[in-house]
C-alpha cells in the first residue's frame, strides 16, 4: 500500500512541476516578443503619456516576475487576463468555444474505440489471413493521411457522391443536442481516421503477442472458450499498453481538431487560436495555449495512474 501511495504522490509532484514548467515556457515565449504591446495597440501617433497609461492599465509596467505570478494565479482561478481584441475575459472566451473542441475530440475518441477494437480483435484472431492483410494495408494508408486532407476528401465525397453539405453549419448543444452531435460527426471522423489506424495497429500486435503467451495455452487446456480467454485474459493484458496509446491519441486528436475546425468552419478553440494569432492578441493566445497543454498534462497523468492500477508492475519501475 505504501508503494501505491508513494507512486501517486510522486506522479502528482511530477504533474505540478510539469504544469509549472509549461506555464513558464508559455510565459517566456510571450515575454520575448519584440516590440511594445501598448505602442502596437495605440498606433504610432499616440503620445508617450497615453502609451504609459495603457501600459499601467495592462499591467505591463510591473516587473516580469510579478507579472508571471499574477498570470499564474489568474490561470488557476480561470481568469488569466483580458483579451485585447475581444475586450472580454480570456476565461469566458475559452469557455464559450470549449464545447466544440471537447465535443469533437470526445466523438472522435468514441469512434476510434468503437471501430479499432472490434477490427483489431477480428484481425488478430487469424493474423496473416486476407482480411487481416487488407485491414493492415488500409490502416497504413489511413495513417498517412493528415486529418485536414481527410476532411477535404470527406467533404468532396459527401458533397459529390451523397450530395450532402454539412460543412459550415454549427448547431449549439443547448439548442439541439442531436444536431450538435450531427454537425460534429464528419469532422470527428476525419480526425479519428488516422488514429483508428494507429490504435488498430497497436492493439492488434499487442493481442497477437498476448495470444502466444503461456497462460493462454494453459487456459485453453483448462477448457475455457476462445471468447472467454479473449475477454477475461487477453484484452485486460492488452489494455495496459492501450491506455498509454489512448492518452497519446487523445492529445493528438485535440491537436488535430485545431486544424480540422478550420476546414469545417466550426467555432472552436482552433479558430479562436488563429484569430488570436492574426490579431496578435497575446493574453488570449497564451491562455488558450496553456489550457490546451493543461488538458494534455492531466490526460497523461490520468493515463499513468490508470496504467499503474491496471498493471501494478509499472509502479516498481
Amino acid at each position, binding site marked *: 500500500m505504501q508503494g501505491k501511495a508513494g507512486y501517486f504522490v510522486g506522479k502528482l509532484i511530477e504533474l505540478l512541476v510539469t504544469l509549472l514548467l509549461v506555464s513558464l515556457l508559455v510565459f517566456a515565449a510571450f515575454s520575448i516578443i519584440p516590440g511594445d504591446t501598448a505602442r502596437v495597440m495605440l498606433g504610432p501617433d499616440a503620445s508617450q503619456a497615453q502609451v504609459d497609461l495603457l501600459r499601467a492599465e495592462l499591467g505591463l509596467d510591473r516587473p516580469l516576475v510579478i507579472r508571471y505570478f499574477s498570470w499564474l494565479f489568474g490561470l488557476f482561478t480561470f481568469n488569466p487576463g483580458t483579451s485585447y481584441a475581444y475586450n472580454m475575459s480570456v476565461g469566458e472566451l475559452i469557455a464559450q468555444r470549449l464545447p466544440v473542441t471537447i465535443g469533437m475530440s470526445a466523438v472522435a475518441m468514441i469512434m476510434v474505440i468503437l471501430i479499432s477494437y472490434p477490427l483489431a480483435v477480428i484481425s488478430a484472431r487469424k493474423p496473416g489471413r486476407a482480411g487481416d492483410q487488407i485491414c493492415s494495408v488500409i490502416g497504413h*494508408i489511413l495513417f498517412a*493521411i493528415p486529418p485536414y486532407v481527410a476532411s477535404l476528401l470527406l467533404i*468532396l465525397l459527401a*458533397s459529390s457522391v451523397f450530395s450532402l453539405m454539412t460543412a459550415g453549419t454549427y448547431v449549439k448543444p443547448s439548442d439541439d443536442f442531436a444536431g450538435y452531435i450531427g454537425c460534429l460527426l464528419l469532422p470527428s471522423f476525419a480526425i479519428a481516421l488516422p488514429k483508428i489506424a494507429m490504435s488498430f495497429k497497436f492493439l492488434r500486435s499487442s493481442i497477437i503477442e498476448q495470444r502466444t503467451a503461456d497462460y493462454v*495455452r494453459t487456459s485453453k487446456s483448462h477448457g475455457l472458450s476462445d471468447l472467454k480467454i479473449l475477454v477475461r485474459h487477453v484484452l485486460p493484458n492488452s489494455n495496459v499498453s492501450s491506455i498509454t496509446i489512448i492518452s497519446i491519441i487523445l492529445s493528438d486528436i485535440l*491537436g488535430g481538431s485545431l486544424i480540422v475546425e478550420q*476546414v469545417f468552419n466550426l467555432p472552436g478553440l482552433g479558430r479562436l487560436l488563429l484569430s488570436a494569432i492574426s490579431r496578435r492578441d497575446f493574453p488570449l493566445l497564451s491562455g488558450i*495555449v496553456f489550457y490546451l497543454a493543461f488538458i494534455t498534462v492531466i490526460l497523461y497523468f490520468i493515463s499513468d495512474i490508470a496504467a499503474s492500477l491496471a498493471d501494478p508492475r509499472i509502479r516498481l519501475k
Partner: protein
Amino acid sequence: MQQIKRTKPKTYRSPDASIFYSVGIVLLAFVVLTFIVSLFATPYSPDATDAASKLLAPCPAHPFGTDNFGRDVLSRVMSASKYTIFISVAGVAISLILGTVSGIPAGYFGGLADRGIMLLGNSIMCFPGILLALVAVAVFGASVTNVIWALGLVFAPTFARVCRVGTMEIKELDYITHARVMGVKPLRIMTLHIFPNLVPQLLPATVIGLANMTLFESGMSYLGLGVQPPDASFGKMLSDAQAYIRVAPWLIVFPAMMLVFYILGLYFISEGLRVTLSKGGKR
C-alpha cells in the same frame, strides 16, 4: 487431441521487410523525382497566371488541370514538393542534432542534468499537435526558416528520448566499462562508442520524424502560418482549393496525392526498417 493441435499458438511472422521497402521506395521516389525535375524545369512557371485557362480540368496541355488564377497545377505541385522535402529534412536535422546532443549525455551521466533535460522535453511534448510550433511562428513571424526552427525544437524531445534510453542500455555493456577503465574520456566514449550503436534506433525514428514533420508543416501551411504565398506548398494549395471543392476537385486531389505519397512512402520505409532491425531479437 485434435483441438489442442489446432489451437497451438502459431508464431506470427510479420510480412517481409522487402515488401515495405519496395512500396515505400516507389512512393518516395515518385515524390523525390518530381522534386529533382522541378529543380531544372517545370512545364509552366508555377506562378504564371493565365486568365484564358482558369479552372481547366486535367487535359493534355495541363495534366493536373489549372487553378482559379489559371496557374498550372502540375507545375505548382512540382515546386511545392521542394518546400515539403526541404523543411522536413532541415527540421529533422535540427531535432536530430538537438536530440543527440542532449539525450546521450543525459543517459550517460544521469543525475540532476538528466532529470532537468527530460522534464524540459516532457513539458515540450505536453503541447498537443502543432500548438507549440504555431505559437513560435505567431511570435517570431511566419517564414520558412522559422517553421524549420519551430518544428526542429518541437521534435527534438522525441529524439532525445530515443538517445537517452539507448545510451542507458549501452553504457551498461562490458566494452563501455572496459573503455572507461582504460581511461577513455566520456566525450570520446559518447561519440565513438555509444553514438554508432544508437544508429539502428535513430534510423527508424528519423524516417518517422520526416513523415510527422511533413504532417505538421503541411498543417501549418494550410492554416496560412507555414510557407507564405506566392510560394506554393501542398498545405496552402489545399486551403486555396477548398473554395472550389465542387467545381474543381482536381485542385484537392493532386496536391493531396503527392503529400500522402511522400508521407506513406516514409512510413513504409520506417516499417521495413523496424522489421529488419527487430530481426536481431528485440521485440
